[in-house]
């Protein structure tokens, strides 16, 4: 078992972390103006586009975990880059193991920016849940800032130019969300594990958000004084943060394992993906709520940063099927697996 990050993965985390530092602050800027590309946006799209892309579709043997490590670092700093949305869209196209045509070069090198259109109004986004009609997708991030969308329908995945884009009001303005209307696909490819791969990109960003919220809360707990003591020395403050850190670690471990399971076509890949998405959403929302609490009165003001984590957590939890839906799916799959009629 070599269940440790590779040297390369550590370098990715570091490199993206540096880019993320420079792109920090874009989540706040979007509260008072239109979305603007953060400093690292172009570099991310250009230089990291091959992460997680299987060789069969034009990649260079990078594992899905490589990509998630990069996305997690972006989430931690709330970078409002199009890269995670683009990467999710690319992953959505990567799922068909039978596919042997490489993805377009301009997609892989980030000249053509994609976004994923998966969630249908009223239904969590998942192939077996998307209704045939109407061809409308919701919660599509950066739709007006992307060149095309990768859509998921019951019959498969296709690259599309939307026939209509309706900007919606996102609780996190740094992730502009739209409804997009699509024309019927002329040709689709099998989704295969694409939706699994893409959902894990969202889960990884949630894990980053959870991590960033825990770190910000811990920093506040280490410095803020009340009743003559640093508040982090009160177990009433410290223990809930320990719980948040535990939930975040659980979610990240589940996400990494699910990515490995999907990459290696393990039989438990499906339930692991649901578990990762469920756990990551819960961890991020819980950590952000605790982060607000630790900040006391300032935590409920726009001026402090905790609410930025909460906004991002809600948006990501809602995408690619809500966390609560994924959790129930985990339960249902586990129960089905234990039924006497099912093969164990």
């Amino acid at each position, binding site marked *: 078992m070599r269940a440790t990050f590779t040297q390369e993965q550590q370098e990715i985390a570091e490199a993206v972390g540096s880019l993320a530092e420079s792109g920090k602050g874009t989540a706040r800027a979007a509260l008072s103006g239109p979305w603007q590309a953060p400093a690292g946006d172009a570099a991310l799209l250009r230089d990291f586009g091959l992460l997680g892309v299987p060789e069969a579709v034009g990649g260079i043997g990078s594992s899905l975990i490589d990509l998630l490590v990069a996305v997690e670092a972006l989430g931690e700093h709330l970078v409002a880059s199009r890269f995670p949305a683009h990467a999710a869209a690319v992953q959505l196209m990567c799922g068909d193991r039978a596919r042997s045509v490489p993805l377009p070069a301009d997609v892989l090198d980030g000249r053509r920016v994609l976004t994923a259109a998966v*969630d249908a*109004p*009223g239904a969590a986004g998942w192939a077996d849940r998307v209704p045939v009609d109407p061809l409308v997708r*919701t*919660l599509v991030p950066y739709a007006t800032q992307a060149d095309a969308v990768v859509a998921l329908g019951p019959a498969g995945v296709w690259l599309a130019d939307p026939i209509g884009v309706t900007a*919606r*009001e*996102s*609780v*996190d303005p740094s992730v502009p*969300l739209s409804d997009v209307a699509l024309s019927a696909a002329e040709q689709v490819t099998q989704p295969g594990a694409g939706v699994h791969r893409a959902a894990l990109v969202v889960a990884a960003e949630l894990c980053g958000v959870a991590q960033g919220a825990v770190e910000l809360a811990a920093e506040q707990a280490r410095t*803020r004084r*009340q*009743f003559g*003591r640093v508040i982090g020395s*009160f177990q*009433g*403050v410290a223990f809930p943060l320990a719980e948040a850190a535990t939930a975040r670690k659980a979610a990240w471990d589940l996400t990494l394992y699910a990515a490995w399971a999907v990459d290696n076509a393990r039989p438990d890949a499906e339930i692991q993906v649901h578990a990762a998405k469920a756990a990551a959403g819960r961890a991020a929302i819980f950590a952000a*709520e605790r982060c*607000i*609490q630790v900040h*006391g*009165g*300032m*935590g*409920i*003001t*726009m*001026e402090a940063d905790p*609410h930025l984590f*909460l906004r991002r957590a*809600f*948006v990501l*939890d*809602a*995408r690619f099927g*809500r966390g*609560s839906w994924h959790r129930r799916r985990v339960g249902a799959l586990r129960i089905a697996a234990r039924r006497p009629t099912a093969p164990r």
Partner: protein
Amino acid sequence: MDFADSDVDLAFRRTVGGWLDEALRDVPDQEELSQDEREHWSRVWQDRLCAGGWAGLSWPVEHGGRGLDALAQAVFNEEAAVRGAPYPLNGVGMMLAGPTIIAHGTDEQQARHLPGILHGEEYWCQGFSEPGSGSDLASLRTTATRVDGGWRINGAKIWTSNAHNASRCLLLARTDAEAPKHRGITYFLAPMDGFTIRPLEMINGDTEFNEMFLDDVFVSDDDVLGGVGNGWRVALTTLAFERGSMALNLWVWARQAVDRVVDLAVERGVADDSAFVDAVGALQCDAEAVRIGSMRMVGETRAGGVPGPETSALKSLWAGVVQNANRLAVQLDEAGGVLLDGDGAAARMRRYLRARAHTIEGGTEEVQKSILAERVLDLPRSR
């Protein structure tokens, strides 16, 4: 033990209810309004209260009040909350400043301020909290330095509702830096000329609170309330009036939060999901516990007792119900609650975000648990 209203109480409730129903006839549902609109209706509502003679409900008759007991104000507020009435724009004046001045003020101070409050001409705000003080209110650092005929005040205040509408402030400042922290505080009835006011935007976009900066603000000796160095004791009176007037509001807000999520689920057709039914069961139990606990608290107060540390349990239950119900409502939303232009979605998200403050304002959740641990369970101090 009897939870029924006495005949006298029932008659009072009927009078209040009748007036409210009439006075609220043209007032829209506040939950659906913008903050500006809500502030407009708060002002209208304040004027109607004054005109209707409800401003000094629990003030003695000799001060122009109705001479009812302290509970009457709580019942009035309860009946108003049940009907979704606006929050009166001079609540601080009617329910905090007036009673505190009656309790601790000189004849001259009473004559100077009470009529203005009764007639809706003098609006008040409360300057207790400071940016650094947090849960440890008595650690306040605003200073009042002796000058000729009064005091020069420097410092900053925060979480001030309605500062931009008020002309007077219930202000705590430290007049003796050497004294133990609860002893060196003085309570001022400060005119607000010279206060710099900055609205504080909350995470839900509302600006119900302000910051106030005081640079060499002069307050005259005539505006010291209850004596120099006696401010902490006077402040406790104000805080007790604050708790008392809201005593029967918490349960109303808890019930409304539960009802709203139930209504949404019914509308969405998801109310039969057993996990949802379980969640509603748990919320309903706690919401009712807040209502019943509040009735018992009021009963104790009427029987001559003082509200005990159990009120911390009610605060804690209430915050939990409202936070959990509002989170559940957001997550029932079609798009996970994140598309604010959806039908009612913005209001749900606004309420969810606003509720995060419930475990912070009015004594944090941690402070409530400390009070329960120390005063109900007799455990040693842990802070």
